[in-house]
């Protein structure tokens, strides 16, 4: 899966699963500060990533994600590993 497809699918998940506004989302947007996604929301997102991209994301890697772009990068690494 190419990076653009991952990013666009990730944005769809943030809108559909977390109820975020599409216009607020950019690859640079930080979950906590910019998108008001709290720790529970991050766990929901990780579950959605695992389900929709069919990857496994260990907690210690998940904890390092702060931006949307970093989430896309992690998914990309997992898919190409």
């Amino acid at each position, binding site marked *: 899966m190419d990076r653009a497809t991952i990013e666009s699918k990730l944005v769809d998940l943030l809108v559909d699963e977390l109820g975020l506004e599409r216009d607020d989302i950019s690859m640079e947007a930080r979950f906590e500060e910019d998108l008001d996604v709290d720790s529970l929301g991050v766990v*929901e997102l990780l*579950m959605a990533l695992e389900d929709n991209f069919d990857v496994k994301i260990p907690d210690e890697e998940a904890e390092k994600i702060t931006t949307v772009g970093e989430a896309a990068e992690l998914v990309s690494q997992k898919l190409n590993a």
Partner: protein
Amino acid sequence: MQRRRVVVTGLGTVNPLAHNVDDFWAALLEGRSGAAPITLFDSSRLDVKFAAEVKDFDSTAYLPRKEARRFDRSTMLFWAATQQAVADAGISYEDGEPGAERAGVVCGTGIGGIGTTQDQMDVLAERGPSRVSPLAIPMIMSNQAAGAVSIGFHLAGPSTCTVTACAASANAIGDAAEIIRRGVADVMVAGGMEGSVTEFAMAGFNSMKALSTRNEDPTAASRPFDRDRDGFLLGEGAGALILEEYEHARERGADIYGEFVGYGMSADAYHITLPRPGGGGAARAMQAALDDAGVDPVDVDYINAHGTSTPANDVTETLAIKSVFGDHARSLAVSSTKSMTGHMLGGAGAVEAVIALKTVSEGVIPPTINYTTPDPECDLDYVPNEPREAPVSTALSNSFGFGGHNVSLLFRSLRATT
């Protein structure tokens, strides 16, 4: 020292008949039923396939989807009712504002997030523990609504939850009034809700033989005090009141629906689901509300009955009313609005308190619909089928819950108390 007085300055409701107080009141006076075939889930496995659902409820009318999706349906219903009541009272607080520490919330519910419980139990069974939502616990807990309202409306005073089955939101109103009387707060959001039209809850009530099985005619299913009643109509919904200390309300020039004057509680101490035969427990709750208010039984004009349309409740409640009111029981009006709304369980007490306050402020009594065949054991004036114009200065509202919890709330018009 004179006791601090508590008045009602805001009302809100979302229920099977309407999504606001004005439309609700109009529907009650029309005698409309909220019963219909179930739409919230596939009811094909159930014996009873109808309920009184809150129809076409759109949570995003009250909150952005990002926040609304983190509330159980029951919490969302209470949030909506609270938003209306707060706007009606014209009172609001900023985060951290000093006055906000004098404002709080008591929210009652029978069971809280039973819909989320069922959904997440399905997830656990089908997909395993790693897929149970991080929101499962906050959405299931019975105090989610109290917490959500405290956070969302910046209420930093007392915030708590009553969980006494079908008496829950009546307890919430009484407890909130006591908090104001005690001087701990000046303003309280008080009420409660239920959002339990789910397959699991319906199955449980059905197994208890508590529900009406009138699938062929849902709108005739809830027929309190009628001889042919066969059980209750499951409903859902929420009611919220703004209770306010009288001087506080007067100083800010608030419109006042009426005064909260009496809170009565008792326990049947008898059986987990059946009322004590003879209605002694219910009678003591009504008497306690009258005593709390210092109101003479003959001054009560209207009783909004618990009136569930179960064979046992309606006879027992009739006996209880007769034992408290004596001869006056024949001259006061008693109606069960559950004939229209169905039984909203933990939300019933609050929605019916809204009705009691509207009767006091409007001078019209909503009817008991579907009343066609008198039951010799239920022989009071149940305001059958048609609303009645009548001056109501004092109204009592009964709520009795599984567990034997009996609660009576007494409201008076300000013209009767000042």
